[in-house]
């Protein structure tokens, strides 16, 4: 999977799970800027990302995924190491 496709997918998943239009999301989007992004919706986000990319985050990674930029970074690392 190319980096661009992966990024698009992450934005799309974020948009669906948090119910915000893709245009309103940026790399800096985080629980502070996205209204629905609380600890509960974070669980759904993690489950959706794992399902889409067929990866498994460790417990310490889960609690670090706190902006779109960090998500892209960690997902890239996981995909690269597969």
């Amino acid at each position: 999977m190319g980096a661009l496709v992966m990024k698009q997918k992450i934005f799309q998943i974020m948009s669906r799970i948090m119910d915000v239009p893709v245009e309103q999301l940026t790399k800096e989007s985080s629980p502070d800027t996205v209204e629905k992004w609380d600890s509960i919706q974070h669980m759904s986000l993690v489950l959706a990302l794992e399902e889409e990319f067929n990866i498994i985050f460790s417990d310490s990674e889960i609690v670090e995924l706190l902006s779109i930029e960090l998500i892209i970074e960690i997902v890239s690392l996981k995909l690269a190491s597969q």
Partner: protein
Amino acid sequence: MKKQQSIAEIQEILNRTDKSKLPEIHISVLRNIMIEPIIPYLRYYALDMGFNAHVVCGEYDNVYQEAVGGNEVLFNKNAECIIVFMKLDTLSWGLSRNFNQYNQEQIQGEVARVQDYIKSVLMGIRKQTDAMILWHSFETPTNPSLGIWDSQTEDGQLNIVGVLNSFLRKILKDTSNAYFVDLNLCLARVGIAGFYDSRYWHIGRAPYAREGLREIALEDFKFIRPLKGKNKKCLALDCDNTLWGGIIGEDGLEGIKLGKTHPGSPYYEFQQEIVNLYHRGVIIAMCSKNNEHDVWEVFRRHPYMVLKEEHIATAQINWNDKAANLRQIALDLNIGIDSIVFMDDSEFEINLVREMLPEVKAIHLPHNRAVEYRDILSRCGLFDTLTVSEEDKNRGVMYKAESVRKKLLTEATDMISYYKSLEMLLEIRFANEFSIPRIAQQTQKTNQFNLTTRRYNEADIREFTINSDSDVISLKLIDRFGDSGIVGTCILRYEDKKAIIDTLLLSCRVLGRGVEDAFIIQALKLAKKRGCESVIGEYYATRKNAQVESFYSKYGFQELSDGNNKADKSFIYDLMKGAGTEPDFFKQIDSEI
């Protein structure tokens, strides 16, 4: 089969679907774990059933406070389903995690404490609402505390969890409209790796993984679907590459795959599962493109047909399109098109039916994977009913008789002689302990011929029976084709010389035989006997009962302009003019009134 939708896709469907016109269902969740990620799955399965679900969760580990102390948000007047997640790990750290450090006395003390807790919570919920309660069982520990010895002794953790589950099952069974949801079945189907998520257990006390959550929500909806009368009633089947492997018209009776060994055994076992459903009250119909003669030859002459002609209520075996044939099957059986599940190996036919009849649940059987047919059918969960009654076990016979009656009707010259030819015998009885379960079930399930669509449980019916200001009567029909069992219910309430028809319903499979003519007159006679001077009939419109909108007008009732303003229509019957007489086309009317 359709690919399972991912969480992101489900969320997208939920975000984008216009739910404003859908009926609503309110679900409240009490829990001692974090369970919020199940909400999208619950809402998705509700949407699949045609409902917009509102799900509210109580506070984390506040079950006792909410149930016993009261909570108006969770137990609001719209709540129709209360889901309880009471995980042993939170409820009793001792029994779940420190088991070996406890002596027998301490263990028994913990068991008693947990049982008292369950009892208080259940009673607390019931005090606040009559809604359906779905209580999730305790999961069997997969690595019990005493290792292999645990299975050998009654003092082990496995047995203790079993004792708690038995207690729970019993107390729920003794509570009306409360059900035991067996999480061990969900765990077994998914497998432990897909069921639990230990990361989120530690991060946020959320024990279940994606697949586990989906499976639990699916299990919950096996209960909610019949609660809303949305369980499927009829399974319509293709023949070639569905009931047997190969094509009968080309391969012939000896050439098709069907038998006790491979490659015929997957079809044999699929048929066994179909017959099991038949004995649970599911109506079996054939919908295939074949020469009809060929198909019945297989039914009559193939030694390994488990499914027999007697199981088939009606058949459309011809070269018409399958959507038209499914419509005909619904007409033949007098059931809604939305209560049919259609199974076929042809993607073309499945897509055609999905396109033309979206109300029908069309399930694709991939014919190179016949080994999975049985599982696809048994795990679909669409036919589940909250109870299986004696009537259910015989329903197939009754529906078959119904389609024979239809044939006779086309031959009879006029209706009266047709009715007479049926040799109908009616039995009208006051509700008793034997009939109460069936009567309650009828109020839950009957949609079309139902004037008020009030849903009652057994306790409600019993109360109507005991009270001196109300009566419950049931109607049983027997004709030359067989015993249809209890097919009608009427509840009368009396208020100052007036009888109000609280409930009047008939099972749709007996409509069009003049039975209602006799039943309404019996109800009027009962009101007269109780000293009433008039009878009030009401009509509450639903999406399915338009056919009875003007029912009362046909029987000499006058429409009231100033009746009960909650009802869509109100009617009055003046008993001074007498109750009338039943039509004379019945062979016998045997009444307790």
